[in-house]
């Protein structure tokens, strides 16, 4: 079986399906008994969301023996799937009919989609980074990039010293300075495209015909710096994805909780009593 679908995962998915089936039949039973089923599945939804929030609580209470976080994350993932199914049931697979509910609907999908995205990238990105020669810590990237930029600039400046060669310095000023000054080609790296690197290397190589032996060895060194910078950008692009999906998932979750409270208050405020 693949890394994405192993025996443990199948067992968890089966348990998730069973949990949803229990909900589905209870929901059906409420419906058949002519009670307002929206209150039932609404509270189920709230309960599931609260259960998912326990992951955050667990992370804060790290020195208490409440089970390893990896198990809580698994619970979070599978409850997330059940929650999505219950939400679809609660909203009857349709766009809501009031502005406050539109916001809640959008927030829920933002949280759900970002969560699914996060789960996916947590599996995919570490392996992608591992395929590179050396794994670089995200926090070290700026300083490593600065070191490369400095080396490239020094190399370009040194090429002017003899007074008879300006191609490399010109290339540096026109193209490479921009390339080394900040992370580049983020989207290409995320698409695993080597095209920008190939074009940059072609461009660097194109001045080879104007250089003597010393110049050519400098050019080789510059090309290896370009490749090193490309590797750093690859790490940066993927590191950003790993870091920043949480900036969508977590704040939207708290906003969603606020709107859930408002939604429950409105639902009870305008209800004619619990059926």
């Amino acid at each position, binding site marked *: 079986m693949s890394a994405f679908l192993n025996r443990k995962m199948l067992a968890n998915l089966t348990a998730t399906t069973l949990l949803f089936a229990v909900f589905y039949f209870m929901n059906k039973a409420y419906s058949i008994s002519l009670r307002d089923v929206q209150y039932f599945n609404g509270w189920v939804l709230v309960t599931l969301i609260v259960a998912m929030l326990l992951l955050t609580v667990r*992370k*804060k*209470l*790290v*020195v*208490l*023996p409440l089970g*390893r*976080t*990896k198990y*809580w*994350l698994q619970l979070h993932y599978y409850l997330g799937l059940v929650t999505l199914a219950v939400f679809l049931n609660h909203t009857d697979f349709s766009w809501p009919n009031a502005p406050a509910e539109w916001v809640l609907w959008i927030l829920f999908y933002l949280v759900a989609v970002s969560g699914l995205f996060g789960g996916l990238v*947590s599996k995919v*990105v*570490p*392996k992608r*980074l*591992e395929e590179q020669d050396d*794994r670089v*810590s*995200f926090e070290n990237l700026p300083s490593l990039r600065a070191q490369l930029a400095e080396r490239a600039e020094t190399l370009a400046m040194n090429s002017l010293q003899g007074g008879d060669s300006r191609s490399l310095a010109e290339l540096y000023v026109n193209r490479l300075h921009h390339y080394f000054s900040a992370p580049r080609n983020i989207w290409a790296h995320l698409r695993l495209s080597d095209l920008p690197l190939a074009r940059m290397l072609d461009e660097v190589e194109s001045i080879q015909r104007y250089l003597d032996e010393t110049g050519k060895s400098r050019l080789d060194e510059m090309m290896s710096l370009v490749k090193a910078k490309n590797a750093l950008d690859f790490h940066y692009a993927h*590191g950003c994805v*790993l*870091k920043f999906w949480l900036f969508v998932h977590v704040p939207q979750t708290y906003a969603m909780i606020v709107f859930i409270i408002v939604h429950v208050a409105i639902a009870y405020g305008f209800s004619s009593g619990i059926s």
Partner: protein
Amino acid sequence: MILSLDQQDERNRRWDTAFGDEPLDGETVGRILALPAFADVRADSFPAHLNLDALIANEGRIRTYKRGEVILRHGDYGNSLFIILAGSVVGINDPALSGKATGRRANGSASWRRSLAQLFSSSRPPEYRRARNFGTNGPNRRSREAAGNDSGLEGVSAVDIDELLARHTTFSFEAPQMFGELAALTRSPRSASIFAAEDDTILFELSWQGLRDVRDWSESFRQQIDRLYHERGLVIRLRECPVFDHVDDETLDKIAEEALFETYGNFNWTHRFKREMDKSHKAETIIGLETLICEQGDHVDGLLLINNGFARISKQVDHGERTIGHLSKNDFFGLDDIFAANKGAGATLRTSLRAIGYVDVIRIPTYLVHEHVLPGLDAGLLTLSDVDGGSIEHGELQQGMMDFLVDHRFINGEQAMVINQDRCVGCDDCVRACAVAHDNNPRFVRAGPAYENALVANACMHCTDPVCLIGCPTGAIHRSSDTGTVLINDDTCIGCATCANSCPYNNIQMVEIRDKNGDFLLDRDGKTIARATKCDLCSDQLTGPACVQACPHDALMRTNIRDTDKLVKWLR
């Protein structure tokens, strides 16, 4: 040394805390130095800064036991030497008697109350230390046990000596014999349980620091201790080794008489290793530093039994050496070759053996192996595929991993932190959890040497042979007697950095301590005060290592590096 009140500061100094409750008085010290063990120890051979009387007074203590009381427990980590002053003791090598019968108990320092208080305590500056309470009655001297180096034997009930003698094979010592030197010198667990055989058995216990210093400065004492170590270690090791399981005691004694005790490599290997690693950053060159014990193609010259330390088995491939295995305590080398020679398949070694740093080896002459060991030997102890002309070499993945682990000497790690980079998302939850468990001070760095997807992080590995313990002047860095976890007692650490410099893996950090306002604490000379810090495996937490608990992606584990099967399986 007692300082006046205006001289007192937060810097710990050697002998601020004596090994006993109080330093021994002059009369007792005189009595100790009159013992045969110290008869040839000359005070004038010690350097000026190390007065022999003060050393004995501060590094020794007198202990009195009732009949049946536990003095040492098999399997416990302890590194002190005992000399019997009065009475006698009974010992037993049976590991079965090391558990509840001798009062082994779980670590009781962790509690829910403490953990909750830790979670909700107010934030403190980094490396904050509470100021000591200097009362008007002099500095707050505490014995090292009270300060954390607990032997774990307090409150353990006595055993019935008569029953013990009747039911087990025992050995005994009486005044003025010594015991405990084996565990002290090898930093290994106690190899026997020792009980007081009489009421009012009085022992002099010398800490490792005292033993080390007397041994360093007195050649006669060194020879005496080393002779005991060789004699007793030899027999104990032969008994523990499965190769001799079918050999009777009488024959074993005969083998012990003929066996040779050999030492290879350098006891202080760690500094050279670190220097070479810093210089070349190429672990594969490290094999060149390792002392050759026997070389591939040499005549088979006995069965080698590893008594202490680590050794590398390698085979020549083209112009280099391929590591095909490593040996540690109780492992043996050459049995297959002796067996093959016995069957007429040639009498030369098919692999080489090298000392990884430092290794003690017991050499059993070949003819004794032919005569007493091969007949009746469990066939499972022979790597038969090898004998039959097959190969004991590992697959490509395991080969690379083997080289990585042996070259970096990670095989010393009992609880190494390994990060699976295929799963690690770099969220730093492990680092944060470590910080929460240690007053906002993370005790490891999520970086280190890596091979394929395995990264061995800069976290204390709680080594099998913790060389960081050797040079500590006060015993602040020590092993928990029950679990073997290497811990630092902050109350007795003098900040000398000996342990940090000795750690071959750079896993001990020196920090400068601060007061509640975040200002550096200064000693009476106006200098900042350093303390050694490292991973303590969250030994005082309910959860065990917080880093493992916190990792959401199962990307981090603490493992014995020698358990390579488990490691490789987890890394897949």
